[in-house]
């Protein structure tokens, strides 16, 4: 069993809110990832059971989507945009800096992502899907450190406010 009792309840509600159970694959995968910090094979098996499909189908669907992490990642997922506005406003440099800075830190997982719809404040990043923009390498680091200390709490994955 992957889902906690409370989340199992939520999962059942989610499945019931769709005309067809298979529609719940993405929401259930989000729920599992918000709970565990990643999408484990056990979670995919459980999702398959709850939606009446094969685990291979759950994997086929989930592996299409970049947000689902199928290996454990750090508690903090830092997503740095390098798309065409951030590209010319410091995004690649920010990414490089954070990758270097946190390469040995198991708690922080830095990834490059496509446009985050925050271009007016480029360069931008998300920490566990919480937006931060107008960044410099220093301010970005400060923000991440604040999350590490627990002064900032995100909504998304591991922040748990969406699950």
């Amino acid at each position, binding site marked *: 069993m992957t889902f906690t009792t409370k989340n199992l309840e939520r999962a059942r509600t989610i499945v019931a809110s769709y005309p067809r159970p298979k529609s719940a694959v993405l929401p259930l995968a989000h729920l599992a990832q918000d709970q565990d910090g990643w999408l484990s094979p056990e979670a995919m098996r459980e999702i398959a059971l709850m939606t009446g*499909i094969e685990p*291979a189908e759950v994997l086929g669907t989930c592996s299409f989507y970049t947000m689902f992490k199928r290996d454990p990642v750090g508690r903090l997922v830092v997503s740095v945009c390098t798309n065409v506005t951030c590209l010319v406003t410091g995004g690649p440099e920010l990414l490089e800096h954070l990758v270097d800075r946190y390469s040995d830190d198991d708690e922080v997982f830095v990834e490059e992502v496509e446009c985050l719809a925050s271009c007016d404040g480029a360069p931008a990043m998300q920490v566990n899907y919480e937006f931060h923009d107008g960044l410099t390498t220093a301010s970005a680091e400060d923000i991440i450190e604040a999350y590490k200390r627990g002064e900032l709490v995100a909504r998304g994955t591991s922040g748990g406010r969406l699950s």
Partner: protein
Amino acid sequence: MSANGDALVTITIDGKEVKVPSGELLIKVAQEHGTYIPRFCWHERMKPVGMCRMCLVEIDGVPGLPPACTTPVTDGMVVHTTTPQVRKVQDGVLELLLINHPLDCPVCDRGGECPLQDTTLAFGPGESRFVEEKRHWEKPIPVSDLVLLDRERCIQCARCTRFADEIAGDPLISFGERGGHTEITTFPDEPFASYFSGNTVQVCPVGALTAQPYRFKARPWDLDAAETSCLTCAVQCRGALESASNQLVRLLGVDSDPVNQGWLCDKGRYGYEAINAENRVRYPMVRKSTGADGSPGELVECSWPEALDAAADGIQRALDLNGPRSVALIGGARGTNEDAFAWARLAKGVLRTDNVDAQLGDGLPAAVALGLPHALINDLDTAAAIVLLGPDLKEELPVLYLRVKKAAADGGVPLIEISPRDTGLSRYASARLRHLPGEQADTARKLAAAISGTPSASPDIDAAAALLVGRDGDLVVVLGRGDLAESADVTVGAAAALSIIENVKFLVALRRANVRGALELGLAPGFLPGRATLDTGRDHFVNEWGGVPEEVGLDALGIFSAAAEGRIHALILAGSDPINDCPDRALARNAIMASGFVVAIDTFLTESSKRADVFLPASIWGEKTGTITNLEGRVQRVAQKVSPDGTAMPDWRIAAELAARLGVEFDLESADEVTEEIARVAPAFVGLDMSLLRRARDGAVIPIALFPDEIHLGRAGVALQGASWDPILPVPEVVPEDTDDNSDLHSIVLSVSPAVQLHEWDSASPQLPTPARDAYALRLIVGRTLYDGGTWTMASPSLSPLVPESVLLVNPQDRDRIGVADGESVRVATGRGSIAARVRGDLATPIGTAFMAFNLPGPGAADLVDATLSVTDIRVESIR
């Protein structure tokens, strides 16, 4: 109007006007009218996805470049398939397909028969401009025990995943990742364990999926192919059998519309390996006493004349001393029609015994199987509803399972399943009527009454009957032995109950490959060849053969009982292994031990044949020509592709040799002559001569006068050679000039009439009381698994590892009551015997019942069943 009643429209393809059925896909009608539009993802038997983009064409008035594979034709459509724009796009798609494709053709199984190679040659650019690094993946990786995947070669056409999902209903492989990283994937630790996995290798347009059994076995240009039918089960799927250097190396599915529609199951596809098995018996043997102590001695190799003389002597002695009733023949359901006919003639015309049975107590009485109104497989598609009254088709008749699944899942035909537990089809069933073993007839009777308007007390049954309301067509009952732990009488009672429904037809789902042919040709007590009974056919066959048995003889269980009591003095095992195949092993073993003299005609030393006094090696499928009859009564030809290693002979010739030694000359020199003889003397086969069989693309259904529309004169198909990524169509040996016109033929067919009235079943049958189950017992259900301990499976190196372990499945509640955990051992006992078995909880098995698969290696269900009882109640206790 076209053949199937669709309106015709006129379209123009590259300037040529053609009339085609409205709504058909452009790519298909173009091909049928001589314009091949290149394609990779489209497959005629699957839903179009339009993803490879190879089939783009121009259509006047339609913007852009629509794909021919997703475009239905409409009246007046003007199509261009060779414009510069189209050519450029085809070049482009091919170039793009090749940029990441490893050019490892010399070591690829598909090299030489590769659609990507062929299409590139015909439609592609001359050179590649791609200088970057190609995509790399670990290769090859297994996706199942039988299939390997090379992701670098994959061109992402989704044929394999669509097959697995749409056709097989086993969506265990899927696309994973996306874009340029898209790959075929399975879930970790859950391989593509589908009974149909080999089809994905066949439909793959490149060498991305390869079959473990065929890998590196041959180069395509060394292969020689012949069209044939598979003889693994009674569906008899059409196939192309290929050999290299007198070795069978591959069987590919051929697309026969009424039968298999191109598909094969893996057991049929890879079972040919058994033919090459080391332990095939290649020379005759007789048992020779070695010492002076009079011990029975050992089987030793000898010459054919010596073995045949010994066999004939032993049989003659029994006849002389104890008369025809002391002689019996069991088997004949695994060979050809010709084999069955020859055995029937030997037994009934020469030995004059009616103690003959092609089944081993695991089937249905011939009177029922032959005498019911027969349905065709194709009738499933248009049925008002399908009633499943029999085995788990997925396990026993896999390709029939595909057809039933298709009718239900795609065609919306309601499926009513009457069975004691869940089967592979349960998830497609609209109604699942569960009953205790032994009580099937009762459920059937209530259903029949509800369909006829008398509501039953059960809401489930009434709901099932309601599914038929407002639906046209016949009710097709798929009838077989769902449970080998209960008496066949139970099934007979259920069939009788349903046979009174109006417009009901039966598809007799017996499994052994040519069982229908064997029964039709008289290998059952009370019958003579061609669906004549001993009574109705007596005069005719006395005339032909000089004599027939005086009275109705014993069926297999009767023979075994008589033998066990010492009343059978000569027993002929014609390719049968009762010790493994009779549900009551003790009875079969005792019978063989107590028979005075046993002749085995076989390919391997089995539990039964190794106890014979004379062993005569038979040639098998792939090594002999002839005809066979599938479960719907369709007669088709099988081909010889290799010559047997050693001195094995076809059964019909062995039977003729024995007959000659017993004083009767059959005067039949070739399999074709036997076929002609059958057409001449066997009433149901009248008209089915070689000239018809050579021309009939899908064979013919007996009696042909009833099924004239099933005869289609051949149309030119694509050559059989090579991996048929496009459906292979059957190729007739003789293509008649006028390929479309069957009408002449049909009037000829209608004029043939059998010499003897064909048997019809009178369904008045006794009602059986079912003994009450005591509260401590579980009622046993015994069914088959596709891979079992059968001789062929065990002799196929690729298949034998797939045979599951024997376990006792019980409902988790019962398991807990017994007080064991999954995987723990229990003692299972009946009056017949007791065995140790491992237990597993299984929700598909209802409370109060237990399931065990039949004929798995080691002690098993057959050690528990007493064939004289109507049901089998078992006692289960923990042995910790």
